[in-house]
């Protein structure tokens, strides 16, 4: 077996192939995901749609500096605060400092791959803050102490039986339910209380619109709504490549992302968040002309190697990705070994390899994947 750097790829693959639960989980899920996407593409000119999306992303990335400035301006006008951070450490420190200043003890978190990229949870937990993942899949892997193995289905490597055992163990249940609906309800009830008592909500953003300063978020569980609207402080964390030019562009992406990601025409929830809700201050019923913001909003934009990749005509390709995860569902090695073997944590595959997602903030690959041989000496996971 080849031993490259600190990883024995052959041994890791063998372990994945001989793990019956993993094989069963992948067998059940991957064909379904692949098939669902195929089923919804027939009704539209899919090639034209993805070409259009690509053009929009290319155009936006070419003007990224300008659009970033526009986002800062708009969001600030709308009463939010924007932090543009150069790397993972800066982004973590900003959020941790904000949490400290606001006396945050509990954070509810919607799904955010960038938060996985910058290892945000452990940074907050080290400071004594409770971090609660509220996306069902993310909550499952949080309870299991694992990392996501898929961009949109983070717990795809687990079977229902794995989850029953996990919940029985972590929630101290003698007689755990066995139906998927009941398991979901169990987590839902557990989360509801935490939503109501959280001091900060953290979300990602699928797209950020420069023209209006709008965040666009898609989801199926409603936890993004709750995370962004319930707690007194909302922090949205995203990469700078997510900025697009206009609100009209979003129509194209909303046609594309749910179809490619989950095989849906549209996700159950689409949130467009523009600024912070404000209330007019009244004095005995008379308008005073003043407004106050009901909640605080912070947009944390992460570079973490993205500018370097954007300046590189070859690696730039990775920044056009809308993170639908469809490439994983079509990847033959992925369907047999799952995402953990790739090592390019948290983004499996080529789009996770170059600088933009590498905690080493470098245009050179520090990551490894099944299709891309591991670089000798490359650490599996090295937060900067």
């Amino acid at each position: 077996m080849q031993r490259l750097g600190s990883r024995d790829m052959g041994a890791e693959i063998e372990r994945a192939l001989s793990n019956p639960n993993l094989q069963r989980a992948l067998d059940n899920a991957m064909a379904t995901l692949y098939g669902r996407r195929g089923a919804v593409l027939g009704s539209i000119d899919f090639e034209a749609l993805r070409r259009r999306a690509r053009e929009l992303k290319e155009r936006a990335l070419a003007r990224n500096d300008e659009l970033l400035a526009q986002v800062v301006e708009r969001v600030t006008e709308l009463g939010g605060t924007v932090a543009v951070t150069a790397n993972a450490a800066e982004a973590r420190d900003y959020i941790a400092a904000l949490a400290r200043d606001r006396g945050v003890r509990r954070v509810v978190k919607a799904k955010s791959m960038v938060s996985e990229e910058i290892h945000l949870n452990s940074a907050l937990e080290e400071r004594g803050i409770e971090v609660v993942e509220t996306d069902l899949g993310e909550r499952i892997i949080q309870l299991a102490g694992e990392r996501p193995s898929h961009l949109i289905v983070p717990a795809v490597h687990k079977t229902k039986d794995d989850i029953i055992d996990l919940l029985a163990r972590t929630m101290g249940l003698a007689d755990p339910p066995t139906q998927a609906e009941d398991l979901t309800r169990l987590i839902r009830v557990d989360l509801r209380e935490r939503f109501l008592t959280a001091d900060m909500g953290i979300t990602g953003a699928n797209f950020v619109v420069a023209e209006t300063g709008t965040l666009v978020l898609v989801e199926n569980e409603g936890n993004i709504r709750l995370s962004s609207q319930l707690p007194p402080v909302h922090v949205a964390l995203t990469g700078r490549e997510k900025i697009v030019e206009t609100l009209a562009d979003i129509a194209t992406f909303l046609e594309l992302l749910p179809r490619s990601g989950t095989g849906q025409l549209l996700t159950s929830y689409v949130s467009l968040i523009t600024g912070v809700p404000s209330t007019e201050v009244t004095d005995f019923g008379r308008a005073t002309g003043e407004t106050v913001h009901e909640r605080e909003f912070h947009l944390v934009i992460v570079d973490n190697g993205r500018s370097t990749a954007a300046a590189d005509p070859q690696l730039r390709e990775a920044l056009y990705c809308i993170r639908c995860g469809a490439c994983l569902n079509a990847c033959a090695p992925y369907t047999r070994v799952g995402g953990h073997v790739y090592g390019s944590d948290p983004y499996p595959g080529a789009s996770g390899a170059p600088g933009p997602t590498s905690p080493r903030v470098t245009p050179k690959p520090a990551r490894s994947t099944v299709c891309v041989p591991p670089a000798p000496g490359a650490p599996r996971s090295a937060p900067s």
Partner: protein
Amino acid sequence: MIDIPWLNTVIKERNHQEFGTGLRERVFARADLLGDVGSAVAPVANAIMGRRLARLPLARLGVDPDRRMPRYERQTLEAWFRERGPVVVPEPRARVALFVDCFANHNLPHVGQAAVEVLERARVEVVPAHNACCGRPAMSQGLLEKPRSWAAANLTELGRLVGEGYDIVCIEPSCLSTLREDYRRLLETTALEGDPRIGVLEEHAYDITEYLVKLARDGNLGLELKPLDEAFAVHGHCHQKSLGLGPTPAAVLRLIPDADVREVEALCCGMVGSFGYKAEYSALSRAIGGPLFDRLAQAGGSVVACGISCRTQIESGMGCRVVHPVELIHQALA
């Protein structure tokens, strides 16, 4: 749409620049040289490489010694072309320059010969293109220097042929995919970036099955075919699918009267060039092939596949013979 394969290639290249290149990758990159040597000493090479014991030293290179290599043929496709001399097709309805790929040349010359004879029977003039390796084997290892110079040579040679009215026809789908899907990216950042001949080549290069289907659609095939008394289980090549040619191998078989063609759905055979030979990936390669083998067996009939990777993988995984569709069309010539 993200060009994930190209991104993979670029990252592999950066890995080489940063960390150096292993001997195994250098060897797998040179299908052309391996073919030259393999054919030159074919009886000896095949006898030696046919034994597991002889392959054991390969383990030190990181190659799975349990994997059998494709056999080399003493008479290459090029030599066959030379020996038979030019063949005049009276009033040809089309002119084809056959892309002589490393594998058709050294491992499967009979597939190349079948393609030539089928085309000539359809009154198409065929000449061999004097092409270099397309560059795919080296590109797959992330070694791009040679492929860039080969691509330049091929642009000149194939561009000239197209200018003279020839269509370029490939037998190996992976080579066609390189010409049609990768040369543009490969030649970015070189003097040939955006060269108009790239577009010309993309437009005039065909897969042999695609070309026969095209001739038939144009009402031009003019082949008399006799029924073959067997069913065919067809596996589609990943590069054919990426080129939008998924249905063409089955379509070409349906030109055979009463053909019982069964298309088998699967993601990939799992071989993927050198991937399945690499020690750390060979078990994964076989695991990927598993569902395909099951479905092919379930479909029944002779197994049909186009690329050398699929062919080798299915032959070793199922222990059966695999044929290219053009071999069957050749067999069905009345």
